[in-house]
């Protein structure tokens, strides 16, 4: 655990001299929700000018804790000391008056309003719009966060949206800036830019509370880390002196078993062929697909990387049959033209799919697991006969899934929404895999899923592929794609790059493609040298 990091610590200006009182102290903060103890007497000390990581799995209580600091939630017991004085943070406005700013994980932006209007909403005394637009321009230039104040937010990329949030915080000259999972939607190059900004802020004396479960990032950025598990502080350390594996084991509390990927046998016949797939949506917020072409062979996993909003949702809908295309040959399943078929017919051809949204698309939240098993299982399992539902068989099928995939639930009668994200995702993926599909399309398989469940899901996907199925994974998580994929392609602005073997590419190269630098694909490696990111395996 104490083996020295192979990474040189990030070049870090030494923090300014510390005043006597820490910036923020939490003492014994406890928050209980019905059925769960989200924070169990948490203690935390934040010093001026430090970048402090809050580490933990999903459900460890990180988000609850920062919402308490920012006044969105109120602690049941415990106290907050701001610069040595006990305070109660009644609401976010009170937090902002103290000098606390927060960049949310799911951006709190308004699509149809302009950048300036959005920023104005986050300030208590924004002043006239014209002056504010000037200030926005000044701050964004000073910190290298290019922004056009007059643009509508819906026309911005995800990275630009995050800049709006950050500039909104910076305009209040915060003394404490909370960043909740800020990099989950950024390309590696954008991450590096963000880190430069954060280091600069810290050097100016601002405290940064950085929440993430991406260990390499924390190791390169943060001075200190506090680890939460099950709502409790289970450790504190200097992340620059720990290995990623050590941090991960602190987070999950047990040893981490990385999925093993057996070498790929010679790829078989193409099971999914996509040719000249284009879409035209009337929805101005949608991304149109432009001449997408690829194939996935039996026994292989193709990963599609890309920042959210570059056509992932549209590609998923076009492949599942939710949005059939006009050309029957645009999508072929095992050689059969399927472009004009709906989801049910495609399922009969052997296609199974797991959409990105678990609740509402992958499963009906209010329905039992047995009924949810029926929803897609009826196409290939004998769960319906003569138009009548065979409830007994549906329940038995649900039980099989629960058993085979270690789903923690109160049995087949449990409502889908009562399951944790990881367990529901295991159930949904199990529902598809147990139908023995020839072809599986998965969107964001482990988004918001804890590390244990993620490892189980990765293992199941690899086994499915090695058993002769073709698997397509669409994900924004590059680490995940490198674990799973035999080949990786990148979606950008509705276009798909050529795929390249995962072993012959790097995070940097894929990162450049994610930023739209398609080129010929040969000069990617050179340019990657400039965008050093904090990832490596």
């Amino acid at each position, binding site marked *: 655990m104490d083996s020295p990091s192979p990474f040189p610590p990030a070049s870090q200006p030494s923090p300014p001299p510390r005043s006597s009182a820490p910036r923020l102290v939490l003492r014994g903060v406890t928050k209980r929700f019905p059925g769960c103890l989200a924070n169990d007497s948490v203690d935390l000390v934040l010093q001026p000018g430090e970048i402090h990581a809050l580490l933990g799995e999903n459900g460890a209580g990180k988000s609850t804790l920062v919402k308490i600091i920012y*006044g969105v939630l109120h602690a049941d017991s415990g106290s907050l000391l701001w610069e040595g004085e006990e305070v109660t943070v009644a609401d*976010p406005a009170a937090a*902002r008056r103290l000098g606390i700013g927060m960049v949310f994980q799911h951006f709190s932006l*308004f699509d149809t*309003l302009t950048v300036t209007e959005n920023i104005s*909403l*986050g300030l208590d005394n*924004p002043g006239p719009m014209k002056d504010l637009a000037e200030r926005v321009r000044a701050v964004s230039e000073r910190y290298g966060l290019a922004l056009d104040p007059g643009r509508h937010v819906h026309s911005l990329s995800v990275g630009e949206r995050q800049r709006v949030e950050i500039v909104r915080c910076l305009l209040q000259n915060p003394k404490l800036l909370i960043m909740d999972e800020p990099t989950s939607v950024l390309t590696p190059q954008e991450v590096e830019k963000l880190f430069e900004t954060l280091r600069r802020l810290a050097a100016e004396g601002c405290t940064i509370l950085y929440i993430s479960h991406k260990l390499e990032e924390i190791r390169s950025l943060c001075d200190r880390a506090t680890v939460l598990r099950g709502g409790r502080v289970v450790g504190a350390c200097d992340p620059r002196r720990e290995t990623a594996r050590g941090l991960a084991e602190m987070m999950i509390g047990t040893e981490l078993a990385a999925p093993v990927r057996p070498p790929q046998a010679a790829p078989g016949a193409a099971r999914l062929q996509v040719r000249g797939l284009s879409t035209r949506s009337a*929805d101005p917020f949608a991304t149109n697909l432009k001449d997408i072409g690829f194939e996935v062979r039996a026994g292989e996993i193709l990963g599609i990387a890309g920042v959210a909003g570059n056509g992932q949702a549209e590609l998923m809908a076009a492949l599942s049959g939710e949005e059939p295309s006009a050309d029957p040959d645009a999508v072929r399943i095992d050689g059969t033209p399927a472009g004009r078929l709906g989801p049910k017919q495609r399922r009969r051809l052997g296609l199974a799919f797991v959409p990105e949204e678990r609740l509402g698309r992958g499963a009906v939240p209010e329905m039992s697991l047995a009924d949810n098993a029926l929803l897609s299982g009826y196409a290939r399992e004998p769960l319906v006969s003569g138009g009548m539902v065979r409830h007994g068989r549906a329940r038995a099928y649900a039980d099989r899934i629960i058993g085979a995939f270690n789903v923690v639930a109160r049995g087949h009668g449990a409502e889908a929404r009562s399951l944790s994200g990881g367990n529901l995702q295991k159930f949904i993926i199990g529902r598809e895999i147990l139908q023995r599909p020839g072809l599986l399309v998965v969107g964001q398989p482990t988004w918001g899923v804890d590390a244990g469940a993620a490892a189980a899901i990765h293992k199941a996907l690899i086994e499915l592929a090695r058993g002769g199925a073709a698997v397509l994974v669409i994900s924004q998580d590059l680490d995940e794609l490198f674990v799973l994929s035999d080949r990786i392609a990148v979606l950008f602005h509705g276009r798909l790059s050529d795929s390249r073997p995962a072993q012959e590419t790097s995070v940097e190269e894929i990162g450049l493609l994610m930023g739209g630098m398609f080129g010929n694909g040969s000069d990617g490696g050179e340019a990657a040298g400039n965008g050093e990111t904090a990832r490596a395996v």
Partner: protein
Amino acid sequence: MTELALLGPILAAMMTAATPLLFAALGELVVEKSGVLNLGVEGMMLVGAVCGFAAAVTTGSSTVGFIGGAAAGAAVSAVFGVLVLFLLANQVATGLALTLFGIGLSALIGQGFVGIPLADLPELNVPGLTDLPVIGKALFGQDALVYLALFMVPAVHWFLFHTRAGLKLRAVGENQSAAHALGYKVIGIRFLAVLFGGAMSGMAGAYLSLSYTPMWAEGLTGGRGWIAVALVVFATWKPARVLVGAWLFGGVTIAQLHIQGLGIEVPSQLLSMLPYIATVVVLVVISRDVARIRLNAPASLGKVFHPDA
């Protein structure tokens, strides 16, 4: 020359026919911009109409009547607001119930007021201008309420798009959870918007019973509340387009009356259907333009808001 002589009164009548639609639709527009769908406009208009009429007859003052109508509309909308915002009832069902409730309540209150005549409101008379051919009466010979309704168009636009309060209201309607996370009182802002919408519906009703007819009869509003709701979509949530829509529907209403008056051989029932058919046709045409709807429609419209979720 008969055509031109006819055009003057038609234009003037169009302005008056458009006035109740303007009041009600502008009110509903503000409500929907805050993210609440209130389908009870027809009911609130009826209660506003009968209460305004009763107040005017009892006190002898049209001003008191008009204010009374607005207050009654706001009071009915407060019931709706409590149900959907604090008790989290379904907005569509509650709105429909509000209309049915308003129909019954207005009939009950209005029992003693059927058939009582009321003096016309004074009309503007600017020597020279009012006597202008064709447009004189339409533009310079109306009563105060017509001008008030017209004034509300820029007023609502200015409020929504140029004040901070309006920005907050739009933010709440666009993304309720983000607004909450930033510390805005989603429910409080929506409740005020609902009250404003109720008052405007009440004014629309009061205009009908004090000036347009002027008398009270059961079902006086004749479906104008529904047209107002449709007008908001027609206008893609923009006040200036509400004005255009209100004139269009007012014009169709008046035109069918005059066609009947001219004795053209069309069944009168068919002509009476015209404004409603026009509503359906226009809505279908507008809905085809998904882009415009997406860019202007409040994204949280009709969604129930739980502050703790």
